[in-house]
């Protein structure tokens, strides 16, 4: 038997993911797109995650405001609270926290669902039933994540700003009109554009990792739990890596 080279397994793993990515892109444009399943996934991934993202966003806004008030007070800069909260939420905290929440909720559920379908031969049955499992299961889920996670983040950002206003109003008595005028007028293209790009990439990575981990599960029911677990861990790591890259790239384009 030929001796295995160092890092062979890692290279095989990377090549396998690259193949999976290739088959995703190839199947997007194939005939027989599964529109019905896409809308079903948009509903599951989007609508069923609204509650948790809204709550997270709202609490995030409150906490950020309450944490900032004492420090800003020391510098006599309380009037900057609305701008600080909205810029911090929209540029960084909102997209990253919501993506991490979605990685926990969505990537794990996709990993577990596809993993259990794989070990119970439902994916093979689908293939024998004339469906293309990549098109039916993978393309729809990755696209649904890529579409819905930016929308969920926008919604959560709005809730966070509302949370920030609630905290500021209760502690400083600021009016809603003043808070939102100061909070929103500070925002410009350089705050919104990188954030949106980031959330699209976060959504794609959550969908991709969840599908890949589930689809490649093949060692019995114990590996279903492992697929869900590694889907969360891997997609969370990807979120952090993508965040660093997008911040670096956008800074070099927008602020150079």
């Amino acid at each position, binding site marked *: 038997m030929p001796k295995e080279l160092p890092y062979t397994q890692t290279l095989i793993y990377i090549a396998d993911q690259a193949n999976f990515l290739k088959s995703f892109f190839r199947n997007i444009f194939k005939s027989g797109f599964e529109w019905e399943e896409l809308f079903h996934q948009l509903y599951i991934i989007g609508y069923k995650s609204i509650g948790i993202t809204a709550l997270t966003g709202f609490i995030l806004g409150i906490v950020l405001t309450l944490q900032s008030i004492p420090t800003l007070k020391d510098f006599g800069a309380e009037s900057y609270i609305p701008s600080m909260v909205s810029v911090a939420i929209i540029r960084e905290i909102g997209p990253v926290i919501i993506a991490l929440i979605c990685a926990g909720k969505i990537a794990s559920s996709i990993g577990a669902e596809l993993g259990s379908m794989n070990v119970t031969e*439902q994916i093979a049955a689908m293939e*024998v*039933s004339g469906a293309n499992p990549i098109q039916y299961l993978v393309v729809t889920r990755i696209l649904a994540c890529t579409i819905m996670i930016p929308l969920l983040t926008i919604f959560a950002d709005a809730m966070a700003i509302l949370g920030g206003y609630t905290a500021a109003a209760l502690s400083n008595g600021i009016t809603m009109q003043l808070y939102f005028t100061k909070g929103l007028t500070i925002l410009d293209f350089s705050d919104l554009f990188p954030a949106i790009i980031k959330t699209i990439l976060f959504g794609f990575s959550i969908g991709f990792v969840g599908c890949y981990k589930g689809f490649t599960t093949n060692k019995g029911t114990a590996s279903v739990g492992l697929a869900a677990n590694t889907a969360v861990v891997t997609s969370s790591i990807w979120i952090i890596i993508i965040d660093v890259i997008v911040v670096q790239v956008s800074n070099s384009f927008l602020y150079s």
Partner: protein
Amino acid sequence: MEAVIEIKDLKKSFGDNAILTGINLTVHKGENVVILGKSGSGKSVTIKCISGLLTQDEGSLKVFGEEVKDMDEEALKTLRCKLGFLFQGAALYDSMTVRENLIFPLKRILKIKDKSVLESHCMEVLESVGLTDSIDKMPADLSGGMCKRMGLARTLVVKPEIILYDEPTTGLDTITSKEISNLILKIQQQYNASSVIITHDIPCAKITADRILIIHEGKFIAEGGFDDLENSADAFIRSFFK
């Protein structure tokens, strides 16, 4: 008689583990062939190769006269219109109702869109397996035997010419196993379908088989009728029937 499946010197390995070491098999139209063998002897791999779910390393595997490994995606899809596969655990889509499970292949293989036509196909096939009352149930609400019947219904709904059964009676009680075996026989007569049945269940083999093949270490070591093999001079062959 017309041969629907022709396998010559089929070999398949997973890494260093050789599973099939030279399979030869011909299945004729309307014939029920049972493959008996110990766990890990290559039974499931054989039918997965026939359905195109796995590709052989060496040898020839023709279904309806066409080499399966040379088929492109479209040709494989066309082949699967004529091929049914009942998985060991029935492999029902657990997020779909019984009706949706049946509609799934109808929409994709037969391209039927009309709701009333879909409904009539579903009812017809559910009647033949005796499950008409369960059309709106979820797979989780069905018993083991009902799941197998339901899996069979999903296989039959596209009226395949060849049906591959992967251990159709595993995990069922004796009475339900007998019911499923009789149902397999009834289907063969009703649809004139050819079947390859993989099983450990000797009563199932006795009821369903026109011909039995015994697989051992990736090769067929014996072939014949139930009575011939049960009374074989070879003690190893006889041991399968005890």
